[in-house]
């Protein structure tokens, strides 16, 4: 019998050799967006704090948000939020037993990517 040389554990270094089916891609993006939001909460709290502190604070936040960097951060956070939101809804639907076959799960992943891409594009238009 031929010795099985497949690795038992996979490490970070094996990532490139993985196949990335659409369901896996949609899942890892949900996680990445979650981590972005975890860091992004600091920006959101900063913005909320400044915007509610005084009229002056509100206006200085508005000024920050129209700068190129401010627009990029706003759009980046909205994008992460949009993806995490849509993928989260998919998760809740799957919890209810929907989209559990291979084909329907692939459809759900594609739908998630489609809707969040549309929202991310809308966010870009809105921010600009």
């Amino acid at each position, binding site marked *: 019998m031929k010795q099985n040389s497949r690795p038992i554990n*996979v*490490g970070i270094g094996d990532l490139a050799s993985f196949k990335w089916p659409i369901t896996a891609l949609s899942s890892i993006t949900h996680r990445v967006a979650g*981590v972005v939001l*975890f860091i992004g*909460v*600091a920006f959101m709290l900063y913005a*909320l704090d400044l915007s509610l502190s005084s*009229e002056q604070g509100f206006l200085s936040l508005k000024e920050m948000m129209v700068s190129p960097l401010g627009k990029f951060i706003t759009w980046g956070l909205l994008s992460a939020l949009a993806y995490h939101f849509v993928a989260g809804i998919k*998760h809740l639907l799957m919890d209810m037993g929907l989209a559990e076959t291979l084909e329907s799960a692939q459809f759900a992943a594609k739908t998630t990517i489609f809707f969040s891409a549309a929202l991310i594009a809308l966010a870009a238009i809105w921010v600009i």
Partner: protein
Amino acid sequence: MVSQVTSLSRNGVSDWVIQRVSALVLATYTLWVFGFVVLNPGMDFATWSGFFNNTGMQVFTMLAVLSTAAHAWIGMWTIGSDYLREHTLGPRATTLRFIYQIGCVLIIAAYLIWGINILWGNN
């Protein structure tokens, strides 16, 4: 059943429920705030602070902050337990994961205190 001493509620099923309930709170809050912003183009300070300056919105915002804390911990814990392991990091994995977890806890605690201060601080 193995009790995970670092998971939020020491119980996977309970964490699972908390993750979903907090997700629903956050989704509703997101739609509510975002809807208000979209429906009020050219927002001024009076409209914005008026939106937050009532007990209902303060309670809703506080619920969102608490949900963020729970949701973020369960999510970051899951990611840490999935990736920061011996086969990715070697024998120091437990120590590194513990440091990562402490870092996450401190950030979440800071967010919580900051959020409470924004809502009810006298500044």
